[in-house]
């Protein structure tokens, strides 16, 4: 054969060989491609193709116990969920359209395990199964959420959203109108109420404002035509037919302990809109947080709504956690972490082996120490009295957020112990009334369980390694 025809034949042969090699690669390496696995799981119609895919890995809690595992019997892709509805948020549900961590970790779970290529990779979370269940049960079936996290590393120990639903029967939730498909811990947005006074106090302290302010019983009118901002005691006195005299001239510590709306509205207006906006920007809580990711998917928390106040009335409302503010329970826990962690908010994460990193540093260690003292005083002698746990030195802040339609939302944020905090907790109970009524008892139950599980050690506790 003449050389040019031989070369032409060789080119054709090489081309066919290349196409064939791509075909071979498709057949043998598809099982390691999590995108292909996800596609076949969702859209596949060939049982033979499904059989070639790696069996899905497990989602484990921080102790190595399964939160999502392959069902021993049943279809190839069937799963079981030991925590049931207590864990459905955040674990999610596996299926043609996976949710929660089942979706965010899909690539990792669908890829071969480094140790055993015939099995899917497992992922260990920072979540503690028993604490997660305790957090869910603390909500007692009421709509709300609870988040418990490490203020130093950002690891989330529990993130309960109530009501949940049966992960083995997700269709039962789709017809309900109570929003049980929403992960309230990460995506629920609520007016924060008085827990936001942590933010206002920090903004004022950073601006050098720390003074006594007169708090009359009639309240504070931030601008002409605006309704007065009054302390919560005003309504209680009025219901009894009495007149609230006001706190008088009080300092920040006392105002914080008693959660005086008048004090903090005046304080916020005194610092100005610029200080509010600057602190909001420094916290970065308007941004979404990535909690877990693999492949193309990520699990994100919602960003908080903290629009710049347009006028003095909005500023006054925002300073006491009302108005147009919208906070997630996770963001509330992160704000508590700032006070616990010398002013640094850790990047929250659901993964056990994620490296600890700082999400933002909204205020100084000095300001954080001051706020910590005030939160401790709130528990010792203020509105958060009910959360005192012997030996644990809990620091906390209650919140009662007006909703405008129905009962107030009950909030409570806390961390413990005061010296070297190891856990921060945020609880919201929708329409639960006063913060001390509904959210505080739930947070207390979570703290007790966390102590039992070794996530927090009080004075006198035996030295044990935390999980």
């Amino acid at each position, binding site marked *: *054969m*003449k*050389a*040019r*025809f*031989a*070369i*032409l*034949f060789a*080119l*054709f*042969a090489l*081309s*066919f060989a*290349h*196409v*064939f090699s*791509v*075909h*071979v690669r*498709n*057949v043998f390496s*598809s099982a390691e491609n999590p*995108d*292909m696995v*996800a*596609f*076949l799981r*969702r*859209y*596949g*119609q*060939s*049982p*033979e*193709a499904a059989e*070639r895919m790696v069996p899905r890995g497990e989602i484990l809690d921080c102790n190595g116990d399964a939160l999502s595992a392959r069902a021993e019997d049943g279809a190839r892709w069937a799963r079981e969920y030991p925590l049931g509805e207590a864990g459905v948020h955040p674990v999610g549900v596996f299926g043609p359209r996976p949710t929660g961590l089942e979706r965010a970790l899909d690539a990792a779970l669908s890829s071969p395990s480094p140790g055993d290529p015939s099995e899917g990779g497992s992922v260990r979370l920072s979540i503690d199964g028993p604490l997660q269940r305790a957090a869910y049960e603390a909500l007692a079936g009421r709509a709300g959420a609870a988040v418990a996290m490490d203020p130093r590393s950002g690891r989330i120990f529990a993130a309960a959203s109530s009501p949940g639903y049966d992960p083995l029967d997700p269709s039962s939730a789709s017809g309900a109108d109570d929003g049980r498909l929403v992960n309230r811990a990460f995506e629920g947005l609520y007016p924060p109420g008085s827990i936001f006074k942590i933010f206002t106090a920090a903004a004022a302290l950073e601006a050098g404002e720390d003074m006594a302010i007169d708090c009359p019983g009639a309240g504070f009118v931030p601008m002409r035509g605006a309704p007065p901002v009054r302390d919560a005691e005003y309504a209680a006195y009025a219901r009894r037919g009495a007149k609230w005299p006001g706190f008088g001239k009080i300092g920040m510590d006392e105002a914080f302990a008693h959660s005086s709306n008048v004090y903090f509205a005046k304080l916020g207006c005194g610092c100005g809109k610029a200080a509010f906006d600057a602190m909001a920007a420094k916290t970065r809580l308007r941004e979404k947080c990535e909690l877990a990711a693999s492949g*193309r998917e990520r699990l994100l928390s919602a960003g908080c709504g903290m629009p710049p106040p347009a006028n003095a009335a909005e500023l006054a409302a925002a300073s006491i956690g009302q108005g147009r503010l919208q906070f997630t329970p996770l963001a509330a826990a992160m704000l508590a972490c700032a006070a616990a962690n010398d002013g640094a908010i850790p990047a929250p994460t659901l993964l056990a082996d994620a490296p600890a990193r700082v999400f933002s540093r909204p205020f100084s260690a000095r300001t954080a120490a001051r706020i910590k003292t005030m939160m401790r005083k709130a528990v010792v002698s203020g509105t958060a009295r009910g959360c005192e746990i012997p030996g644990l030195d809990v620091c906390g802040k209650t919140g009662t957020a007006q909703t405008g339609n129905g009962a107030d939302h009950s909030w409570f944020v806390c961390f413990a112990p005061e010296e070297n905090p190891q856990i921060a907790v945020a609880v919201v109970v929708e329409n639960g009334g006063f913060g001390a009524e509904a959210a505080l008892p739930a947070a207390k139950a979570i703290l007790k369980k966390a102590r039992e599980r070794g996530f927090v050690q009080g004075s006198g506790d035996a030295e044990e390694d935390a999980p």
Partner: protein
Amino acid sequence: MTRGGKTILFCTVLLAAFGVSEQIRLSDGAAAGLSGPLAAGVLSGAAAFFAMRARGGDAFRRIAPFAPFAALAAAVALKMFGRAYRGGVFLPGGVNPMEAVKPLAAIFAAEFLAASGEAEEGEKRALHLKFCGGMALFAASAALLNDFGLLATIALSVLCTVFAHSVFAGTLSALAACGACALFFAFPPAHVARRMTAWLDPFSDPAGAGWQILKAQEVMIAGGVFGADFGSAARAAAYVPVASSDFVYAVAAGEWGLAGCGAIFAIYLIMAFCGLSAASRAEDERSRLAAAATVSFICVQALLNAGGVVRAIPMTGLTLPLVSRGGSSLATTLFMCGALAGLASRERSSSSSPAGRRRRGRRLRF
């Protein structure tokens, strides 16, 4: 008939029989209207065989001058009277004249190159201009129909034919073509951009642009090395889009596995080997290039189809020669296979024979 001719004929019959059996299984046992195109293809293939066997490249000489105009006329007719059906455009009666245009470009190039070799210096410039004009008409036909696959087939088969004429010219043309491709893909038309996206990252839109490719991959995965099971073609037809034409390679992979697809490639390569061997042995440049053009048409189309299905290259919407459903495609390919078998079956005649001298003396007239 020489051994090469018999081999090509055998390979043609084998592939066509495989294709017909796949089509019957994909259509759940029905004959699915294959008899007409099959008969037309066999008759035209037989005619081409005997014509090429007797007269070699001279047989293509009559077609070549009209090829560009025929291509443009076919494109205009399709544009004006064509109706969309299952992703393709057809004239009334289900005829796609562009299937015949694909090999015409390579035949045209073969004839030009052969004539150019025989022409005197003064005539070459005019020939070059006519060639450029002809290729421009082919390109215009493809552009009129927005047919990226047609353009790719024409370009690559002409490139191979040029290479068969001269390695230097072929290499130079390939470099120029690469430059043109780079420019084209830098500013691709919308539908080409969509195909590029689907090729590069089908998972970005698995239920949309990536669907066909990923479904084809599913079938190939299911087929493994030796196939899922005989008869799974019908099941695959239920969920692989365009299973009987563009993605028939995937269906074959599902039913026969890597082993079956390797055998299909081997048959194409055997045909290519026999065809190029015949080209190498041919007496005159015209016959050599005619054989090279025919082999190029078959192999290029097979590579573009299979390459798109396995995601080695973007999908081009081409059929797999002799296997895919499509009467026009089947008839055209059988015609070209008949021509190739005829060329391969020509007995080597001495260079000093009167017939040999008469063939060398003729000039191409456009």
